[in-house]
C-alpha cells in the first residue's frame, strides 16, 4: 500500500534527476538567503554553479549541530519570518536548544511524508491513531498528528505520559495504531498486562515507534505483547522531524524518502564518503525544505545504507537501524541528552571543574537517569539539610535544562574514574 506511488516507486534514474534539480535549487537558495552558507561556501571557493551532478554534493561543507547553535535562534532560516508558520526545537549540547522553522509548504511536505510513513504501517481512513508522542517543541507529536489527519485517520492527540489513561482510551476509543517511543510502548504493554488487559482482544494492529534506538529483540517483545506489527520510524528535527525514513511491511530497514532528502554515509573520522553496505555516519541534505534547508547535516547517527531492491516495490534506499552515535548524545525516554548540558548546570552552581557521571539504566521498560556528582569541598556541610537542598536544587535545575528528571547522587571526591585526562561521562547500562 502506497501513499504516493509515483514518488515512492520512481525509477532510480528518474529519481536522481529529480534530486539533482532539487539540490541545485536548494543550494541556490541557501547561498542567496543564508549568510552562514554563503560564508562557508565562499571560504571553500564554491558557488551554486559548481553543483552540476549529484556527486558535486561532496564539494559542499558539512553542517554540524554547533553551526545551528551559533546561528541561534533564527539565523539559519532561508525565508523571512513572515513566511515561517511554525518553529520546533530540540535540545542543544548546552543550555540553548536547536531551533528549526517551517513554511506553510514545509508543513504540507512534512504531513505528506508522515502520511507516507503511516500508510507504510497500514494506516488508512477509518484507523484510530493513538498518538502518544509528546506535543510541543518536540517534533514527534505534531509530526504524526498532521500525517495521520492527512491520511484521514482519527487522531487521538493524547501526547505522552499518564499510562492509566492511555490504556483506558486505547480500549474505549478502539485505537488501531499506536505511535510513541518503543520504550514507552513496552511500558504500556507491561502495565496493561499487569492490569489483566488482553491486547489480543483489542483492535490495535500496528505501532510506529521511533525517537530513540531500539532493537530486534524489543520488536519481538512489542509484537508479541501488543499483538501488532511494530514499525521503526526515523527522523530528527534538524532535517524535518519524524518522517525522514520509515520501515515498510518487509521490516528490512527504513526507506529514506529520497525525493526530499539526499543521504550519504561517511567515515566519521575522515569525512570521506562510504559505499552502500558500509557502516558510518548518516549525513543528510534536504531537497525541498524552504524555511530551514540544510546542507550535508551530520546526524551523528551510525547506520548503513543499501540500494538493494525491496520486496515492497519502493525504490528508495533503506537505512539499517541506528546502532550508535558518533558523539556522546544519549536518548533517554525519547529525549536527547548531552553530558555537556549537565556540565553547564554544574558550572552555573559555581563548580569550576565539575566531575560527574551520567548513569543510564532501564528499570522495567523505562529509562532512568542517575547523575553522580562529586561533592566539592565548598558544597560540603555538616548539616544533612544543606546537602539535601543542594541535591534538590541540582535536580530541579537539571530537569529544566534536560527536559527529563534525573536522580542526583552526591559522591565522594575523586571517586568518578578519570582516564588520560578525559573523564568518562556516561555509563549506559541499558541492554536494548
Amino acid at each position, binding site marked *: 500500500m502506497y501513499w504516493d506511488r509515483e514518488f515512492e516507486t520512481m525509477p532510480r534514474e528518474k529519481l536522481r534527476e529529480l534530486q539533482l534539480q532539487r539540490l541545485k535549487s536548494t543550494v541556490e537558495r541557501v547561498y542567496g538567503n543564508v549568510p552562514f552558507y554563503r560564508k562557508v561556501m565562499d571560504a571553500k571557493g564554491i558557488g551554486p554553479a559548481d553543483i552540476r551532478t549529484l556527486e558535486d554534493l561532496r564539494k559542499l561543507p558539512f553542517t554540524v549541530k554547533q553551526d545551528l547553535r551559533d546561528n541561534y535562534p533564527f539565523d539559519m532560516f532561508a525565508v523571512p519570518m513572515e513566511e515561517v508558520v511554525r518553529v520546533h526545537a530540540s535540545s542543544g549540547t548546552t543550555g540553548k536548544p536547536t531551533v528549526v522553522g517551517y513554511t506553510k509548504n514545509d508543513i504540507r511536505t512534512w504531513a505528506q511524508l508522515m502520511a507516507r510513513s503511516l500508510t507504510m504501517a497500514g494506516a488508512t481512513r477509518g484507523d484510530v491513531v493513538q498518538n502518544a508522542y509528546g506535543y510541543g517543541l518536540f517534533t514527534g507529536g505534531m509530526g504524526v498528528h498532521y500525517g495521520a489527519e492527512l491520511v484521514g485517520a482519527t487522531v487521538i492527540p493524547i501526547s505522552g505520559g499518564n499510562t492509566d489513561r492511555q490504556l483506558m482510551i486505547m480500549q474505549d476509543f478502539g485505537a488501531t495504531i499506536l505511535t510513541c517511543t518503543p520504550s514507552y510502548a513496552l511500558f504500556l504493554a507491561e502495565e496493561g498486562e499487569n492490569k489483566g488487559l488482553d491486547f489480543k482482544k483489542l483492535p490495535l494492529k500496528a505501532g510506529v515507534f521511533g525517537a530513540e534506538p531500539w532493537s530486534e529483540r524489543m520488536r519481538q517483545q512489542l509484537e508479541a505483547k501488543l499483538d501488532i506489527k511494530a514499525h521503526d520510524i526515523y527522523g530528527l528535527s534538524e532535517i524535518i522531524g519524524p518522517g525522514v525514513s520509515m520501515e515498510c511491511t518487509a521490516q528490512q530497514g527504513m526507506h529514506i524518502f529520497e525525493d526530499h532528502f539526499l543521504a550519504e554515509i561517511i567515515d566519521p573520522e575522515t569525512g570521506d564518503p562510504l559505499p552502500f553496505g558500509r557502516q558510518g555516519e548518516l549525513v543528510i541534505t534536504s531537497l525541498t525544505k524552504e524555511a530551514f534547508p540544510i546542507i550535508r547535516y551530520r546526524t551523528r547517527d551510525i547506520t548503513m545504507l543499501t540500494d538493494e531492491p525491496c520486496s515492497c516495490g519502493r525504490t528508495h534506499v533503506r537505512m539499517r537501524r541506528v546502532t550508535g552515535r558518533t558523539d556522546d548524545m544519549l536518548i533517554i525516554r525519547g529525549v536527547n541528552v548531552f553530558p555537556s548540558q549537565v556540565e553547564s548546570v554544574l558550572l552555573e552552581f559555581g563548580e569550576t571543574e565539575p566531575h560527574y557521571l551520567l548513569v543510564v539504566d532501564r528499570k522495567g521498560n523505562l529509562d532512568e537517569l542517575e547523575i553522580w556528582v562529586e*561533592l*566539592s*569541598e565548598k558544597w*560540603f*556541610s*555538616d*548539616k*544533612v539539610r544543606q*546537602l*539535601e537542598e543542594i541535591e534538590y536544587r541540582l535536580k530541579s535545575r537539571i530537569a529544566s535544562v534536560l527536559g527529563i528528571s534525573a536522580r542526583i*547522587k*552526591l*559522591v*565522594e*571526591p*575523586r*571517586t568518578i574514574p578519570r582516564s588520560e585526562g578525559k573523564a568518562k561521562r556516561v555509563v549506559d547500562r541499558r541492554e536494548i
Partner: protein
Amino acid sequence: MRIKQISVFLENKSGRLAKVTRVLGDNGINIRALSIADTTDFGILRLIVNDPDRAYGVLKESGFSVNATDVIAVEIPDTPGGLAGALECLREANINIEYLYAFLTRVSRAALVVFRVEQIDEAVRVLREKGVRILDGAEVYNL
C-alpha cells in the same frame, strides 16, 4: 568555649567509615566522640578528636570532603531531667539546635553533650546563666 568538630562526607558504601578511622589511627589521632547522620545515599560523620587541625589535614590529603565547624560541649548532670533543663533554656532563648550527640567519659560522672547551634555565643551565655558547665577545647581534646 568553641570546640572544633570535623565532619566527613561518606557515601553509603562499605568500608568508608573503616577508611576514615584507619587514616586517623595511622596518624596517631584519637577519636573522642562521633556521630553519623545518614540518608539513603550518603552519611555525614561528625568527629571530635584530640587534634582537629591535624585530622582535617590528613583526611583532606586522603581525598575526603572534610569540613570543620564550631560546636559546644556541655556537661549534663547524670541525673533524670539533666538534658531537659539545658534544652529548655535554649528553647526559651529561641536558639535552634541543628543536632546534638552525647558521649560518656571515664573521668567524669556527668554526660557530655555536643550541641551544634548557629548562635554559639548566645547559647553559651544562656547556658552559663543557668549554671550549666561548658567545656573548653583543651578539656575536650585531652579527655
